[in-house]
């Protein structure tokens, strides 16, 4: 009698395990495609506002297809090549970036001049727009061909981590050593600095004024005024555009790789999963794999105050990822997160970019319908 009831008890306990191991008897609901929600914010690298320049503001060259010689009428003055060669910070910047001899010094001067209210010199506005497009092209192709399964939100965040305002500002200030023009005209006069030297520093209309140390006043927001980070980032973008104009596409690609893509980002720490278990089971359903099962691999000190559990997340017989934690729940969730990251951060061994010569078409994941 007693043995019979024990057998019955076992049968009851085993049944849910058996059910998770086999395919689900109930047919799962078909996945519905939710309409894509419109993002109401933009990353800083996408924010460049394309301004339309009207016909009367333009000097149109005789041959209308000669796109390099279109000029805005507002540029009345331009720093000549001879003058630019007299500015020490321009000469050193040219040498530090290892720019080619084709790259003109006057282009660097123009790249360091942002659009300002009272400025008649050629500014970097259009150059920065073009440079931003070049940067986003090369960075995006690099990320997509290295991580073909990234979700779109993470892909954009990673692009922003490379070429957003703050990153490029760090490139300009702390790697390239570009300085901004902070001294007033009086201070320049007193230090008997030549007038030309101010063109060697980044000049822009500031959003803010420093009233005294520790107090910043946001009072100067106009059409042309810029953030500190945006102004520095625009200088970098303009310099990249200059490399393209003087040296061509191949050198630009190398320039971006050595100055921007060589920097460190950690994509795996950009993810923060809400309900990773649900996400994983949906992902496996889309990929037509068996639903996830979590099994305990080993444990210690279950009754102590510092237990450790090691679990594995399985789909059928194949183990997707392991996870460890101080409670069963924690270990389980960690194993889900590891499994999701193992899928999304897949990296082909010899990835080739579309702009490479020996590029072969690659499979980019189409993305999941449930985001």
């Amino acid at each position, binding site marked *: 009698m007693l043995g019979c009831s024990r057998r019955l008890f076992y049968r009851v306990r085993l049944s849910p395990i058996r059910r998770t191991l086999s395919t689900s008897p109930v047919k799962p609901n078909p996945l519905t495609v939710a309409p894509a929600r419109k993002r109401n914010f933009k990353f800083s690298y996408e924010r460049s506002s394309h301004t339309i320049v009207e016909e009367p503001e333009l000097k149109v060259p005789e041959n209308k297809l000669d796109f390099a010689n279109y000029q805005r009428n507002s540029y009345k003055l331009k720093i000549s090549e001879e003058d630019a060669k007299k500015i020490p*910070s321009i000469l*050193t910047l040219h040498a530090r970036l290892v720019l080619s001899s084709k790259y003109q010094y006057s282009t660097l001067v123009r790249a360091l001049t942002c659009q300002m209210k009272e400025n008649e010199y050629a500014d970097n506005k259009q150059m920065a727009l073009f440079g931003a497009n070049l940067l986003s092209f090369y960075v995006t192709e690099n990320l997509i061909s290295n991580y073909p399964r990234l979700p779109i939100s993470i892909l954009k965040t990673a692009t922003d981590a490379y070429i957003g305002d703050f990153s490029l500002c760090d490139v300009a200030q702390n790697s390239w050593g570009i300085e901004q023009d902070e001294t007033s005209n009086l201070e320049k006069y007193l230090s008997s600095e030549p007038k030309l030297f101010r063109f060697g520093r980044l000049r822009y209309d500031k959003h803010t004024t420093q009233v005294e140390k520790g107090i910043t006043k946001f009072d100067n927001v106009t059409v042309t005024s810029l953030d500190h980070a945006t102004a520095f980032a625009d200088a970098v973008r303009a310099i990249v555009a200059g490399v393209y104009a003087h040296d061509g596409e191949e050198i630009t690609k190398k320039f971006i790789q050595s100055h921007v893509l060589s920097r460190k980002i950690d994509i795996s720490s950009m993810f923060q999963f809400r309900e990773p278990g649900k996400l994983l089971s949906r992902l496996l359903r889309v990929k037509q794999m068996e639903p996830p099962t979590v099994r305990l691999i080993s444990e*210690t000190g279950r009754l102590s105050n510092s237990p450790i559990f090691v679990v594995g997340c399985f789909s059928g017989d194949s183990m997707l990822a392991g996870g460890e934690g101080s409670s069963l729940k924690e270990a389980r969730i960690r194993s889900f997160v590891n499994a999701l990251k193992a899928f999304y951060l897949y990296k082909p061994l010899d990835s080739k970019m579309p702009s490479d010569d020996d590029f072969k078409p690659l499979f980019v994941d189409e993305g999941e319908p449930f985001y």
Partner: protein
Amino acid sequence: MAGINIIKQVSKARNGLGLFILPCKQITITYCNFGGSSQGMRDFLRLKLTKFASQYPEVAFQVLDKPGFHPVIKGFYSNNQTKQICCRKLNADMIENKLKLIINSSGRKLTKPKQKVISLNKSVRGIWSPFHVDPSERYKI
């Protein structure tokens, strides 16, 4: 709601991985035109500076006459730090070595490293775990 939140990042510089950019961007040299302690500096400026400065096109050299003071060389770095060395009574060769010292430093403050290896990357091997050892070889209490 299940989904993915994003955590924004800013990329970190790894100087020398793509291209090495010299952290030192400017050197200011001050000297006195008649003081005895500036004798070596005056020799350096007259005989050696042009050749020395042309070896480092990345660095802007600025020479200032500061009468009545000892000669000082001051380096400006891209991390907004400066480093200065007084060159009182040094001869031209010693000054050249001091200049090389300024050019070759990173501009970071001198600190004693606590770790033997400082890296942005995580350890390749990870933390050793006793639970992934084969159960037959596991240590038993």
